[in-house]
């Protein structure tokens, strides 16, 4: 959370700052607990989890401590608990992973713990984590071809997993029976329990220290402060209505032409409101790429938040200035039961937030940004198999994060290299090679930033990451759902597109063949899976880029000196050390048609 600049309607501004940092500290401690105690690499090292605190009446306090898609609409996840239960009590913990009751998608288990202070329920502490497995028919947590919820595995539509601070053994037994590699699942679940309980203890201490009335007043002041900051930000935007459309790659039999996603955004500085209308989109598709309501709402908010001052607290107050118009039965709206939403958090969600973000780009400079790379290549696959390294082969399953997609160029800055898809918002980590190789019987042959892939612009997109991996002494099953292989990230305002993603297999004879984008592949020890993520798009005309920056990009190995000349109109010559390049000022001026 950020430092409030002004007093918050009578609430002591110093105390507002102190208490908001206390909340941030609690969220950091939750995050730390999950990282330190969880088991699957998707949670402990990739950090595909998020921590949040919501008021007991379901108002968001922050969404800074994790992935935007997990947190932007977090209160939708706790809200149904109040609908289903009239006996919520201290010591309870609820699991929600169901898209039809406020979940994001089935693999994201949200653990929600009510916090009672002096007998009064005041907060929910929530950890939403993407599990390595959720008991689906296929060994993966992303099922693009699953048409209905019945093909997705376990759903817990707000189920009480703990009472009196104890797990319910029957529910744990049920999960352990159906989820692959149950020990890892249970360790991850317990890490969530630890984080939620730690936060519960800290919040109680906070109330003991400052008093119930002060903490309650703080919540109101904090939310009001978020709203005031948002009002000021909206008033600084031009008035008008803008639209933008992007298109998710085709998914055979699910969406053969791909999924076009349109957003229309209206800014009304007078009322200080932004309206996002995404109703004009196709109906739900027969597969797993439909949005859940929580994801659709989050996607719209991400598109807005990405284009405003990041120091605005992203709480109930700021969200209240964004009106989101969703449609029932729409691919980016409220899904119609029992349609599939297995892949709701990533693919079409990224297109949705990109479409909203693109509306800002239509405002012209300095607004908006190019498109960031799309995701879920085979470099982010769910891998599974039998680990041959112990006496008795042991099953394993996990999503690893080898290479994230590249960030988008914005006015004044190049794209962030480890951006990942818009749903991740640069909050994911990549797996250390040694962590992956020690946990799973695979060898990561290569991971490098990929030359001549970045979207060129006055402000470049970030390059793609490419590489390859192979199983050691066994066969690995690889599952992925890769968007951006065909419709890659677009440049903006004269910038060029990022290079598309690639998924391929190297066979034992050394030949390499492209693999389908939404796919399960079995790979043997004399073969390898090759991946390249989608690079980020460029912002503005590359010929306006500072030539020294172009030379630096070439020396970094991200760009060939030929491209420097043809795309950026920058002439380079070898430096005295015979390795680096430097700008030939005169030749560049000539190329750019400027006086020498």
């Amino acid at each position: 959370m950020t430092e409030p600049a002004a007093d918050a309607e009578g609430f002591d501004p110093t105390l507002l700052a102190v208490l908001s940092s206390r909340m941030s500290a609690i969220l950091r401690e939750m995050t730390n607990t999950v990282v330190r105690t969880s088991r699957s690499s998707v949670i402990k090292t990739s950090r595909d989890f998020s921590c949040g605190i919501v008021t007991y009446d379901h108002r968001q306090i922050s969404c800074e401590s994790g992935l935007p898609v997990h947190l932007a609409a977090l209160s939708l996840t706790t809200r149904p608990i109040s609908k289903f239960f009239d006996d919520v009590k201290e010591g309870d913990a609820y699991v929600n992973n169901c898209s039809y009751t406020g979940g994001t998608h089935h693999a994201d288990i949200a653990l929600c713990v009510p916090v009672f202070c002096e007998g009064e329920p005041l907060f929910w502490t929530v950890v939403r984590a993407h599990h390595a497995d959720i008991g689906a028919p296929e060994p993966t947590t992303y099922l693009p071809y699953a048409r209905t919820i019945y093909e997705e595995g376990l759903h817990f539509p707000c189920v009480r997993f703990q009472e009196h601070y104890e797990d319910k053994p029957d529910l744990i037994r049920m999960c352990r029976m159906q989820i692959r590699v149950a020990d890892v699942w249970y360790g991850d679940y317990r890490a969530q329990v630890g984080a939620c309980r730690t936060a519960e203890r800290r919040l109680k201490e906070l109330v003991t220290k400052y008093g119930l009335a002060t903490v309650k007043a703080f919540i109101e002041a904090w939310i009001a402060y978020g709203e005031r900051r948002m009002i000021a930000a909206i008033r600084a935007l031009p008035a008008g209505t803008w639209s933008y459309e992007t298109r998710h790659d085709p998914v055979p039999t699910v969406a053969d032409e791909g999924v076009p996603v349109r957003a229309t955004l209206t800014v009304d500085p007078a009322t200080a409101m932004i309206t996002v209308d995404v109703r004009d989109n196709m109906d739900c598709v027969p597969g797993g790429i439909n949005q859940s309501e929580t994801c659709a709402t989050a996607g719209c908010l991400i598109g807005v938040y990405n284009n405003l001052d990041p120091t605005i607290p992203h709480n109930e107050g700021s969200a209240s200035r964004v009106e989101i118009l969703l449609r029932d039965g729409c691919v980016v709206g409220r899904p119609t039961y029992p349609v599939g939403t297995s892949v709701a958090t990533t693919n079409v969600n990224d297109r949705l937030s990109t479409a909203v973000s693109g509306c800002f780009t239509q405002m012209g400079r300095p607004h908006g940004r190019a498109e960031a790379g799309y995701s879920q290549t085979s470099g982010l696959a769910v891998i599974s198999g039998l680990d041959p390294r112990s006496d008795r082969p042991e099953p394993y399953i996990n999503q690893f994060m080898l290479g994230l997609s590249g960030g988008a160029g914005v006015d004044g800055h190049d794209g962030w290299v480890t951006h990942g898809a818009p749903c991740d918002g640069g909050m994911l980590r990549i797996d250390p090679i040694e962590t992956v190789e020690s946990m799973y019987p695979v060898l990561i042959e290569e991971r490098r930033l990929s030359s001549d892939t970045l979207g060129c612009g006055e402000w470049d997109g970030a390059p793609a990451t490419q590489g390859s991996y192979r199983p050691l002494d066994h066969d690995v099953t690889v599952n992925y759902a890769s968007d951006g292989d065909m419709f890659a990230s677009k440049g903006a305002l004269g910038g060029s597109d990022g290079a598309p993603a690639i998924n391929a297999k190297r066979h034992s004879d050394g030949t390499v063949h492209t693999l389908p984008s939404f796919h399960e592949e079995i790979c043997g020890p004399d073969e390898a899976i090759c991946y390249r993520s989608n690079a980020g798009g460029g912002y503005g005309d590359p010929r306006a880029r500072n030539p020294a920056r172009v030379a630096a990009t070439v020396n970094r190995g991200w760009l060939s000196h030929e491209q420097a000349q043809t795309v950026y109109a920058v002439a380079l010559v070898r430096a005295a050390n015979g390795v680096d390049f430097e700008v030939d000022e005169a030749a560049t001026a000539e190329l750019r048609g400027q006086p020498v």
Partner: protein
Amino acid sequence: MTYAVCIDTGGTFTDCVVATGDNLRIFKTASTPPDFDRGFMNALALAAEDAGLGLDRFLAEVDVIIHGTTASTNALIEGKTARVGLIVNAGHPDILTLRDAPEKRSFDWHLDYPEPFVARNLTVEVGGRFDSSGRELEPLNEADVRAAADHFRRMETEAIAVCLLWSIIDGAHERRVAEILRDELPDLPVTLSHELNPVSREYRRAISASINASLAPVISRYVSSIEDSLREAGYRNDLLIANCVGGMMQAAEIVERPIYSVMSGPTLAPVAARHLTDEPDVIVIDMGGTTLDVSAIRDREIVVSPEAMLTRYDLLGLPKVDVRSVGAGGGSIAWVDPGGLLHVGPQSAGAQPGPACYGAGGTEATVTDANVVLGIIDPDFFLGGRIRLDRAAAKAAVEAVGARLGTGLLETAHAIHAASNHTMIAAIEDITVGEGLDPRECYLVAGGGATAAHLCEMADILGITRTMIPRFVAGLSAFGGLVSEFRSEAVATLAMTGERFDADAVNRVLTELTTKGAAFLERAGVATEDRRYDHLFSARYRFQSWEIDVPFSPGPGGLGADDVADLVSDFHAIHQRVYTIHNPEESVEFTAWKVRAVGAGRYSADREVPSPVVPAGAVVPKGRREVYRHEVGAAALLPVFDADRLGPGMHIDGPAIAEAELTTILLRSGWVADIDAHGNFLLTKDKA
């Protein structure tokens, strides 16, 4: 009579504390960047003069010199480290660019991706690969290594770091690379990641090896120049250097592992504070000319950050005493932005030209100038009157800021004073509130000559009611050096589980590590009875990535087969305490064993440090002067005490000023000061 000397070289000032049998003296002189060794020798000359001896006679009687130095920190900040070449596995050239993906704020895209510590065009890939079990999948490609040497020659590389995957399981490839480099580039220092920092996760090893290599020539030159100067001046005894883990090492060992010199100096402040007070939770602030360093003690232990950052985006790769710096010091410059908002720092006037009131060419208003204008600092008694400050120059500089703000002189001076307090408060909150520690429940120990003028106001805002201004506040870190211990930690990886526990193997490892530690203490000349060995094991549940360190005592005969049950239950208990969860049914994996060798220094542990000699006398002010008091909006006449004449048992009430040669204490109303047996000022907020 023999002397023990500690010299702490900061960016602006060089502090020197000298202990003899019955007395402790402190000296301060300007640092002399970039040749810090001159300031070092100047400080010794001051000490010799005070002892009434020539430098050679004085040094002949010094039996140990302990040194905290900003040399490496300075080189890192100013980018004056050596040009490093990095050797990595084929296919993995971007370890330092990708890191683990650097941490950023959500929804923030208007920022530049951080450059890698070693540029990509100085990173070279070589063929050869081990897997995680230590199986060699591909032999080292020696031709690649020779080509790398060629490349480094052309790039005028000055030091080399080598980080190969799984070198912690089998270091053969890294060692062979070093051999080839010795042949090809015999003059370049080479750091092998598995030797420096044998931890899993390649980025951590690569960054620490690269930092170490980048500092190798810098620290080697620096230590040589100090040793040469000392030898010329006739010194024959030990030179010890403070390290980043809160201990000291022989100079030769810091040259071998220069990364340990990062933040040497600031890490001594909490060491000093731990010696000065028995309070469990302490915040330590040390304000110099340019920065404020904040550190903490929790449950009597100096807080160490296992994931210490070198910069915002890069890890150090090794644990380090958690010291956080912010650009706020006596020399911090006040400026007004185009929107009319006042800022103080992070730019600093440093020692040269220094604040405007130094009259050495500085014209910009600094915090010190503001304090002169406010009447807190007496221009005629700065450094005990050795430097006469120019009040008119301070006034002119502050007035210039006031003209831009549209405020009067005193109001402007107070705004500068207060703005710098708030910058410092934010840094204190970062290490307390930010880590879940309530500052109001902490004791505060001040360091730095300028701090005492700000302390009460900061404490009031933070809600802290008890603080200490040590007698040697102006040289807190230097004092810390004097009371520090020898410290070295040796780690060995040895994996086993609670069910398959091999006590003999563990004992063999512990013996090896203890032998290493004993050798370290032997080299340091620590007597056997002054040696201590702390034992820790790292353990986790299966598939966790992060271990917890659990202390244990193996006993004289080592661990027995029956001891494992205790180790396992200690692990479960600590896991429960730290994370609120544990699973007694689960197997515990032991991963590493550590022995921390600790040797008492001359004044460490419970040994009494000599106290200053304070003449007895009555508590009478030496005078009165006008000091601006914001709480009443006007200047008021405050009593001024000579702090050097306030001895044990004496007491003064605020509002008042107590000044000594190197510090000025502003005691606000509502605060009282009691002088303890060692001459330290214990400040307490009056409950009434």
